[in-house]
């Protein structure tokens, strides 16, 4: 296996899933899923709960065996191997630290069960504890340290194995909002500097958009789209992606002369692509401000036009409720049978 990976490093994906299929309790959870993850890439598996992302991750880690299909890690077929024989390491959602061991012993465990020499264990564990800034908690028990620190211990325990593939299962879901952003950046920095191929499973679109090189959006056991975060947001391939990543106003019909009119297909408009002004202009229709809700660094404004009601995000001068003016759609996404047809740009 080692001979192959060095020469094929450029073409061999860090992880390849081929026609991966799994049914549980008579329901098809993952449906002939195919995915290539580039070496050193961080890819987010994003989807609502029940979309099959956790099942997929458990098949990659080896806790579940697929009904059909293959899992290849760094060019090697591991489908038949148990989790202990796969070159992957996982950070569990609840961290799954062993409460009866110190931080040091938690991190040392993967090396101990592999029979690594004692001095080597000490050296590598101390090194990785320094990497996640936990040297001072070396002899603490998991119960004595904070949630964020526990998270870093779990990460250290995965990294010390020098895995070919790092698996993160909703790693930030147990942290409060502020810490989440901080840990997210720490994980990202570490992952980049170590160059480990990484899969992060999340249902949080902000997390996926901010941390990953590419995002695979999952829905009903299938992948709807695999793209970079900006591409995914700008050109959501399906209606599901458009609604799940970011927020859209969605209408049956077509866009004609700036107005939503009856017609085949669906129109999706991002709230930040709606422009409201007091004066009339090309493509703008009369609109009245129905409600204004402050949302932090922007306001959510509901505009009523003769054709549709629009939810818009606005910054700067915010109109009062009841203000009459003109609202224009700057950009819209046109879908037919759930798939993206074109991105319609409004007049400048």
């Amino acid at each position, binding site marked *: 296996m080692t001979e192959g990976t060095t020469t094929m490093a450029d073409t061999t994906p860090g992880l390849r899933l081929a026609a991966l299929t799994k049914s549980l309790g008579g329901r098809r959870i993952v449906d002939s899923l195919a995915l290539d993850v580039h070496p050193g890439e961080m890819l987010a598996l994003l989807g609502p709960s029940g979309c099959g992302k956790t099942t997929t991750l458990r098949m990659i880690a080896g806790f579940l065996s697929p009904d059909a299909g293959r899992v290849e890690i760094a060019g090697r077929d591991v489908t038949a191997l148990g989790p202990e024989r796969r070159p992957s390491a996982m950070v569990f959602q609840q961290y799954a630290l062993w409460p*009866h061991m110190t931080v040091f012993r938690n991190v040392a465990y993967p090396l101990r069960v592999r029979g690594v020499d004692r001095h080597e264990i000490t050296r590598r564990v101390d090194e990785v504890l320094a990497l996640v800034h936990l040297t001072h908690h070396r002899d603490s028990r998991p119960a004595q340290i904070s949630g964020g620190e526990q998270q870093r211990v779990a990460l250290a325990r995965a990294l010390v194995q020098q895995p070919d593939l790092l698996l993160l299962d909703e790693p930030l879901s147990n942290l409060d909002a502020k810490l989440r952003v901080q840990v997210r950046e720490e994980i990202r920095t570490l992952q980049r500097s170590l160059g480990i191929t990484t899969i992060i499973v999340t249902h949080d679109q902000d997390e996926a958009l901010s941390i990953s090189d590419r995002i695979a959006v999952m829905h009903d056991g299938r992948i709807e789209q695999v793209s970079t975060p900006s591409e995914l947001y700008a050109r959501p391939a399906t209606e599901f992606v458009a609604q799940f990543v970011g927020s859209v106003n969605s209408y049956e019909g077509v866009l004609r002369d700036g107005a939503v009119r009856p017609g085949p297909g669906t129109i999706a408009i991002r709230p930040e692509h709606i422009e409201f002004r007091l004066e009339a202009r090309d493509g703008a229709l009369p609109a009245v401000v129905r409600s204004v809700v402050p949302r932090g660094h922007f306001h959510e404004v509901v505009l009523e036009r003769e054709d549709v009601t629009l939810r818009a995000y606005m910054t700067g001068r915010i109109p009062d409720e009841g203000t009459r003016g003109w609202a224009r759609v700057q950009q819209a996404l046109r879908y037919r049978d759930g798939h993206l047809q074109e991105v319609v740009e409004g007049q400048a």
Partner: protein
Amino acid sequence: MNARRALREIGIGALAIALMAFILGPILWLGAHAFATSWTFPRLSADGWTTHWWHEVFADSALAGAIRTSLLITPVVVLISAVICLPAAYAIGRHSFPGRRLFLIGMFAANAFPKIGLFASLAALFYAMNLMGTVIGIVIVQLLGTIVFMTWIPASAFAAVPRSLEEAARDAGASRLTVFRTITLRLAMPSILVAVIMSFLASFDEAQGSYLVGAPNIYTMPTEMYALVENYPIQVAAVFSILLSVPSVILIGLARQHIIGGRLAEGFQIR
């Protein structure tokens, strides 16, 4: 207001003292008798003090033999019970199989009926199998009393070990057996220790069945008490009672230190 509160506190104090006397009184009485030359009824203290009764107990071959028998049989019973029951406890705690509930209730049923009835029918069986008056017979009888402790307590402990902790260990490269040894068993250990202690005490103190099966060939410490009460001065029985309580006191002390004192609690503090 203050008077009522004072009255209430006096009431509580009196109650506490009464309770203490009720609990500690017999133990003090026992302790005093073990060292008394004699004690005639109306007097408030013993006629004299001696360690004579202790020498007599240790010198008496029957009494010393009973101590030896008990100290031999009890560990064997606990060991066999652990070997049989712990795998069963693991199966009950971690797997769901047909008849699981029935199994659990059945185990309890052995303790629900009056034991003497069970022992009487067991004795009939033992006669047929030539187990009456044998150490093996006593071991089997004492095993019965330990099964509930050795299955129920560890079963709930095994059930309480989060799967993710085991999965994390496998993900870290440990085989199933290593995971069981280093994670599952280790986390269930405080409860298993409790079960061992409870089983030890149940076996060590078991008298009815052991007397029925063992007498007159084999006497354990509790069954020897029957003979003592009838044939020896009361001071000897007191000495023997104290000896009989030694393992209980030691084990409960250990349990306090190791199990109540944090390890159990810490072991299961899992978010």
